[in-house]
């Protein structure tokens, strides 16, 4: 894969005394400390990464992490304080105004969170805006704008005004405006964040479909991990102005660089919204009431259902322990009266129903057995197996 955009040691310092801030940065002070001392804000600090041709590169981070600033330095809407941005081998940071305007007109287009359409222009004129500015003649730019509108499915609305369209449709116009000049790079600043979730997913799908047809290099800002995982070929995670990790979604989830990155992973809706009790399943594991069922009968019941594990409860349905067909068999073979108590698996620990899924996740992942869930009174509610967990994550993720 060819390198499209190379970002080298990029810095942005807002405020009157950047040099002072650099000194403090070198001393290792944090963003907040420097702000307190000098009143200058570190927008981006020492960001380096490479964006490959034709990939969707998602820049993720909380608000204030510098992701918008970083992306705006690619087309110099914000002037970098130090460092280089190299696009197709050309140093953008060294370009004069004329070359920069050519770059913006022909090679990069941008899509904005608030759509930023011109309310006094019709949809087709909005889509043709970049071409108009570039001096393309009217007939030709209308033709290309219509083709772009066709790509986003808005050809029929060409003569409407933006205010007559829904949010999703307005952002399609924003996308068409960016596509009209056929740029090789698309910068998308939280482009779908203002849309409601259903439309957002739809727009993501559409972007992926467009990307399949014409591979552009897309730099996509997002604060939403679900979105990043869905559309990103690679993700860069920013924290306090610095790029802390770059990798494929899988790499980032399986091997987060630090707690901040991990917090995004835990921040996925499912694990916050659900707790253990919500997904505990009764059907996966057989339940045996200790006083009423003998060890032998329990073993037979397990074999009958083809299961490996059973939960043992007392008469009040309170959880007592978990047994496996192996431990039960051992008890039957042994001398003396077979006892449930001695057949309990040792490394099984029940979890309370209100434990957040984020914590349950690791327990289930580490355990060889299903994890039993109990309510506040110790009553057995169900178990969480790896299968149940994966299904839950899959449904909502």
């Amino acid at each position, binding site marked *: 894969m060819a390198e499209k955009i190379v970002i080298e040691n990029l810095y942005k310092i807002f405020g009157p005394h950047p040099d002072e801030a650099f000194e403090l940065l070198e001393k290792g002070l944090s963003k907040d400390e420097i702000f307190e001392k000098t009143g200058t804000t570190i927008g981006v600090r020492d960001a380096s990464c490479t964006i490959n041709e034709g990939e969707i590169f998602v820049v993720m981070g909380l608000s204030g992490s510098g992701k918008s600033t970083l992306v*705006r330095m690619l*087309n110099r809407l914000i002037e970098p304080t130090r460092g280089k941005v190299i696009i197709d081998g050309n140093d953008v940071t060294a370009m004069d105004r004329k070359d920069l305007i050519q770059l913006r007109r022909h090679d990069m287009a941008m899509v904005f*969170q608030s759509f*930023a359409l011109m309310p*006094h222009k019709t949809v087709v004129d909005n889509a043709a*805006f*970049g071409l*108009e*500015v*570039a001096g393309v003649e009217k007939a030709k730019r209308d033709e290309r704008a219509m083709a772009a509108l066709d790509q986003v499915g808005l050809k029929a609305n060409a003569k409407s005004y933006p205010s007559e369209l829904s949010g999703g449709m307005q952002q399609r116009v924003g996308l068409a405006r960016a596509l009209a000049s056929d740029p090789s790079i698309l910068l998308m600043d939280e482009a779908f964040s203002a849309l409601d979730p259903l439309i957002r997913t739809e727009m993501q799908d559409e972007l992926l479909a467009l990307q399949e047809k014409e591979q552009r290099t897309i730099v996509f800002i997002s604060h939403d991990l679900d979105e990043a995982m869905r559309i990103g070929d690679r993700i860069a995670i920013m924290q306090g102005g610095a790029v802390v990790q770059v990798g494929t979604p899988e790499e980032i989830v399986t091997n987060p660089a630090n707690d901040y990155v991990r917090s995004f992973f835990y921040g996925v809706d499912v694990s916050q919204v659900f707790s253990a009790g919500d997904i505990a399943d009764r059907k996966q594991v057989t339940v045996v009431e200790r006083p009423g069922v003998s060890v032998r009968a329990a073993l037979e019941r397990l074999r009958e259902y083809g299961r490996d594990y059973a939960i043992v409860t007392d008469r009040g349905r309170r959880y007592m322990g978990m047994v496996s067909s192996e431990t039960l068999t051992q008890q039957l073979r042994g001398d003396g009266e077979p006892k449930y108590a001695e057949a309990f698996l040792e490394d099984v620990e029940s979890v309370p129903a209100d434990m957040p899924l984020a914590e349950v996740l690791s327990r289930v992942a580490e355990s060889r057995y299903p994890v039993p869930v109990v309510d506040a009174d110790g009553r057995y509610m169900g178990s969480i197996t790896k299968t149940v967990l994966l299904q839950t994550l899959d449904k909502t993720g």
Partner: protein
Amino acid sequence: MAVEQINIPIGPYVEYAVDWVQNNLTGLLDGISATIGFIVNNLEDFLLWVPGWLLALVIIGFGIWRVNWRFGIFAAVAMFLIFGMNLWEETVSTLALVVASSIVALAVGVPLGISMARNDLVEMIIRPVLDFMQTMPPFVYLIPAAIFFGLGKVPGTIATVIFAMPPAVRLTNLGIRQVSKEQVEAGLAFGCTARQLLFKVQLPLAMPSIMAGVNQTIMLALSMVVIASMIGAGGLGNTVLTGIQRLNVGLGFEGGLGVVLLAILLDRITQSFGQARKGKR
């Protein structure tokens, strides 16, 4: 030293400055006078040359087209009243003064507003000047205007321009500054030059605000034109002034009514231009 003994001679200083301007900037004053005189006189001649019924029809037509048919009827009644009071010539003369001074005020005010919006330093300097211009009692402008330009329509127009300009400047500045940051960024991101950004993004988006400024300027011009009759600007103001001087209530009222009718017509028609743009949003 007692407080009453302090004497800061601001009045004499101002007199001195006015004298200096009069003696040393004669060429500039003559130039301004010639330009403004040319605009006002030609406009007035033209409006008086057009047959009265035709001008009335045009105004009624504007009323129907820009506002609605009911306003057209109102315009017709207003025209009829003005004819009936035998104030047609005075009204047209006032209209010419208002239009001429508004054109000059906008020609100066809008670019000034644009430069204010683009540069914080310029804004910092101009803002207090605007405050000064707006709060100074309008009569005060008559004195230097009369000294520099004598009596008649030209000093009347100049005093009016100064009095009517601030809202055009302010609202142009405000309108451009209110254009959202992302819209400006969008303009730049798609490769606008500074000039394209101004004409394709900032001015069109500021237009409702600028049109409100235009409306305000025209209204202020109308009110000042009446006052300017004291230095011989003529028109309806003159009728009112004569009414005051002779304590002739009827005449004064007729003149006043003419001003009110003209004000309503101008206000509604100019407002409609600002709203039409909003309607498309």
